[in-house]
């Protein structure tokens, strides 16, 4: 029982820390927007936004997990994220573009790795062949 309470408290403080982090980030973003649009944000607004963001993040997490499970996977995928973001078109576009970027980047990375591997293989093969030849001969 006491352990549970301690856990609860820990969890609660953890949540508070997370909320504080979100709040800080929201505040920074709002400052940017404020300087951009030359409009001021009240403290309550920022607090409200951060609270909403935090709750929405929780929902997102649950939804992502549901989507992944729906697709019979145990890992959350970019597909799940895209499914989550399908509601707002701009967000979906943004995420899709980012996704494409990332995949391209990954492909490039893979290509590079492959090249390296191939080179390495070639070298090793040559070395092996050379070695075998030497051994044979």
């Amino acid at each position, binding site marked *: 029982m006491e352990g549970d309470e301690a856990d609860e408290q820990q969890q609660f403080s953890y949540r508070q820390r997370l909320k504080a982090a979100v709040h800080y980030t929201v505040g920074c973003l709002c400052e940017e927007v404020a300087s951009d649009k030359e409009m001021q944000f009240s403290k309550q607004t920022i607090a409200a936004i951060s609270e909403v963001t935090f709750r929405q993040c929780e929902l997102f997490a649950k*939804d992502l997990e*549901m*989507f992944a499970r*729906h*697709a*019979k996977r145990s890992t959350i995928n970019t*597909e*799940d994220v895209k*499914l989550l973001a*399908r509601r707002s078109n701009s967000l979906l576009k943004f995420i899709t573009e980012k996704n494409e970027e990332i995949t391209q980047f990954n492909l490039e990375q893979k290509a590079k790795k492959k090249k390296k591997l191939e080179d390495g293989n070639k070298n090793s093969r040559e070395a092996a062949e050379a070695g075998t030849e030497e051994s044979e001969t």
Partner: protein
Amino acid sequence: MGLCDRLARISLNATGGNATTAAAQAALGRMAEAMAHRNTPDGEPTTRTLLRRVLDTADPRTPQRPGSARACSPSVHSSQRRRSLGSAQRALLETTSYKRLSNQTKATARRRSYRARAIGQWSHVQASGHLEEQTPRTLLKNILLTAPESSIVMPESAVQPVQEPQVVQPSRRESSRGSLELQFPEFEPPVTLAPGLLAPGRRKQRLRLSVFQQGVDQDLPLSQEPHGNTDASSFTSSLNLTFATPLQPQSVQRPGLARRPPTRRPVDVGAFLQDLRDTSQASVPLGDSHRTPVATLPTDTVLEDTQPFSHPLVSHRTWSNVPELQNNSSGKPAQSLAGRAEEVNVLDVGFPNTSSGISGEGGLESLEVGISEKAEERMEEGLSVSEVKEATGVQGSAREEEHEGHTEITEAEGSQGAIEAMEPEGSSRDEDTSSGTASPELASSTPEFLRARQLHLELSPPTSAADLGSEPLEPLSVRLPPRSRTARPRPRQDPYKAGLSHYAKLFSFYAKMPMEKKALEMVEKCLDKYFQHLCDDLEVFAAHAGRKTVRPEDLELLMRRQGLVTDQVSLYVLVERHLPLEYRQLLIPCAFSGNSVFPAQ
């Protein structure tokens, strides 16, 4: 006190009849004890006490020696029992009526609970050996089962109910009353009760009304009836002891399943098709021949009568549904009715398809061709086949559309589910026409079954076919031959939202206030968007799982996101709560396990 005397008498009788067992005696002892405890502090005989008295004075025969007990009882104890029972009953009645006047529902509830308890205890005393006779237990049990919940009748109106039982009584005289001395003041209740008890077929003894009358007359002066006969009659009337046979629905294995009576009237297919023909001839049919629908026809027709959703959907949007449903149907004609949405969809598709088939427009011909194709491929019910044939027979000979329809049908054939059908068609359509027009249509097609799924519709008779008007699915008509297009513009708006008008009406009903027309239109728009959204979601969910068919898992995911299905409330719980039995058995795998189904499916 009379109770004690009666108890003593009972035990004496029991011992005399040699029929008491330890259980019976224990039961008696318990009853006495209970009676002592339950007596109201003010000493006024409560329902319980009266009932106890009645039960006590009844012949406590045990199953062990039914023969001897029965042999002894009638001759020896009958009159005595009757008398005692009569007095006990009278007292019971009086008290109950009195109680009722003062505290009606409580008395009824108490009486019921008391009776239940009494009956339970009686079972010890009067064992199955008395099956052939009307035992107080069975009588009381029937009372409990058949007496209406709130049957408190004031003394003034006691006369009428009394008369009724009398009328009933002669018709049901055969109940064996030999040992039964439930002498309600007017005798009618016991009389009518007996028939109910004997309904299962145990009319062995004749009702000896004269004996009853004698007993009652003799007991009348003895009873401590504060109010006169009127109270008794009021009691009986309030008891409302119709004593009809407790309703035993044969098909329902569990009483809990007997929910609200089906308020739907089965759709007369012939009349419906006739209506469709009329409306189709009246208005220009939509040319969405493309969609092939309906292999689902067979299922549609089968579900016709049972599906509550079919009616509003069909009636309201038969035309509009045609294209959409065709999409859906083409997608999933073969889909088993595992999914509720599918069922509804099928149903929707079925009707519109038939209706469209009936229409004279050529555009529909391809549809029906598609339907026949699909139907042949995935014939599920013979009835639907006949419908399809009928549709084909009625159809005109617009060959051009047929080609189009065929091509589309072939396209659609590849698809497996409604979503699947929608997607390829939608994509192909998009290529041909503006995507904007196509998407709402797609969305509107799926909303049909979703609507039925989401909104637990009460069955309302299908609105007149006139509502349907011509099909609004303009986007579909794009592919149709030009001549159908020309006739389309006018009905464009109406049919598109014809199906939603039903929901708007429901909305206005629940609003309990008169609504402006604009408000209703707004509601329709919102509903439309909502359903489109819903269907898009379903489509995406299915695609997300790598499938082309919408399955119940997708719907469950959707409901989870909506918050209807939670960790506490599972989908099956909702299904049990809201859907009729036929769908329960389809959706819940084990709902029917262990039961026998008639007719065998």
